[in-house]
């Protein structure tokens, strides 16, 4: 390729990337601009793109008009604990199915996959009855269990794939070097499965963070409602307080973005490179 052609290609690719980014980010920009408008401007006709008077105070006001702190705390606890639970259960299942050949192994893995095919919405009534019977309505436990269960299949599969890709000789070498089964797992296998664990954590955490339908059904008080449910309070019977709704939504995005920015560095590929020829 000639130099100008290479340049051209680079410019074009960059332009395309920016275009995609723009399309993806546009709704967020709209949210941000709306969140900065005073209430009267929201229904102005014709609507303006930029606020005429910038209401940065909306972002402070929103904490006062609704118990955002409580909602945020609930969301963090529910998403965090269901992630821990899902990964803790998926790890042994994935390890065992990757390392052992046993009767019904394929069947088990397929079954796990099948559970992914039901949308939460379709199951929500059954789940509600179940939690009612268990006396868990309007508790953290209910949402943690349900979120963990919904994400178990993905976590199991991704970890299964990771464990399968780690040569079994590495564990055998560790056994001969004096490790027990658990020690070999902790010192050799798990460190190499870190990208898989991180993927499972990110996926589960984000899905649980954004979960709405089940939380709406199972919770009824601000003590347990997560942010996704809590901010629906801004949707009133006669009007929607868009500026607060969007301000709260943007606040809800920040922790997830921060988590992703931090954890993404562990997603390096090729961790097992060089171990086996």
């Amino acid at each position: 390729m000639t130099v100008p052609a290479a340049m051209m290609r680079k410019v074009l690719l960059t332009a395309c990337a920016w275009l995609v980014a723009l399309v993806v980010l546009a709704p967020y920009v709209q949210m941000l601009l709306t969140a900065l408008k005073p209430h009267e401007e929201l229904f102005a006709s014709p609507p303006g793109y930029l606020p005429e008077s910038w209401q940065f105070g909306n972002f402070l006001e929103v904490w006062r008009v609704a118990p955002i702190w409580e909602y945020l705390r609930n969301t963090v606890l529910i998403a965090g604990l269901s992630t821990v639970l899902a990964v803790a259960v998926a790890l042994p299942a994935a390890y065992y199915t990757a390392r052992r050949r046993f009767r019904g192994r394929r069947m088990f893995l397929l079954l796990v996959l099948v559970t992914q095919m039901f949308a939460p919405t379709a199951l929500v009534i059954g789940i509600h009855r179940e939690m009612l019977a268990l006396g868990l309505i309007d508790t953290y436990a209910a949402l943690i269990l349900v979120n963990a269960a919904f994400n178990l299949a993905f976590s199991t599969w991704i970890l299964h794939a990771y464990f399968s890709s780690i040569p079994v000789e590495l564990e055998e070498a560790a056994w001969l070097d004096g490790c027990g089964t658990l020690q070999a797992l902790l010192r050799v296998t798990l460190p190499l499965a870190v990208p898989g664990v991180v993927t499972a954590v990110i996926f589960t955490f984000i899905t649980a963070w954004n979960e709405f339908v089940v939380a709406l059904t199972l919770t009824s008080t601000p003590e347990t409602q997560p942010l996704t449910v809590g901010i629906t309070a801004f949707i009133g019977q006669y009007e929607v307080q868009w500026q607060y709704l969007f301000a709260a939504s943007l606040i809800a995005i920040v922790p997830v973005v921060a988590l992703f920015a931090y954890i993404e560095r562990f997603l390096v590929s090729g961790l097992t490179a060089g171990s086996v020829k």
Partner: protein
Amino acid sequence: MATVHYDGATRWYQGTERPAVDSLDLRIDDGEFLVLIGPSGCGKSTSLRMLAGLEDVDAGRVRIGETDVTALPPKQRDIAMVFQNYALYPHMNVADNMGFALKIAGRSKDEIRQRVRDAAQLLDLEDYLDRKPKALSGGQRQRVAMGRAIVRQPQVFCMDEPLSNLDAKLRVSTRTQIAALQRRLGTTTVYVTHDQVEAMTMGDRVALLDEGVVQQCGTPRELYERPANVFVAGFIGSPAMNLRQGRLTEHGADIGGMTVPVSRQARATAASDGDGAVTVGFRPEAIDLVGEDEGVAATVTLVEELGSDAYCYTTFRERESAPGEVDVVARIDPRKPPAKGETVHLRVRPDETHVFSTATGARIPG
């Protein structure tokens, strides 16, 4: 340091029709270098892994020194293994790879550092101690795998085709290095390979396996000079021994018109317990090219020149009723090789033939 004793050790994988290793009986002396060799799938790795504790022993026992290790987990056997694909820990640098077992055993940091450095010096790895395995060449990785084994000063080394991932030249130099290192350390070693040159050059003794059964175990010279059966005769040696079915006659054995000398004793034994049908073997170097009125006339089909040696592939038509052809490979003087298509006269030297029973394949002594 210890002896290793396989006592009827058997491994039968579920759902297979015969044992992968069938009542293996082997005694390996303290400090000995034993090579397990055989064609692919004959049970070499399985035998080695039974010793290491990575494979169940379905029947029989395995002992290391005085200890019966049959039911012990790998970590209690004090064995170091070099895997075919090295199995280096990719998240640890070379020093940590080599010191891992000592760390698990709870040795002090100073001791670990010292022993790792000593091993690194021995293997010429001092400059690479901080590198991760992925930043090493194939040969360096192989040496790290060796280093990880010798740092531990274990009772037994197990090596499963440790050279098969190296290029041909490196394989030859590493071969001698490993053999020299083992002699120097004096650690009992079981070495698996499918390469007979490795087996012949490295082993104090060689055990040849086929279909999970030991065919012969002895010094490389014994296997070469007195193969116990047709399989051993055909497996050891390159190019392979000429093996032909023939009939006993008054002077020797007749293979399609060529008379091969056979000792009187062998003729007598074969005649007394058989129908006279034998399989005769003679190595390419047991053949002389002779003058026109001697030996048997054969046509040269191919000449393989290897520099120091040359091999002549010949064929001659059977003289008698069955009109087949007989192929014979002969080693010849590389300075005056015959041309392709030329006719040469072959004669097998006396005392250099091997006679086997065609029915059982077993060697007929003589």
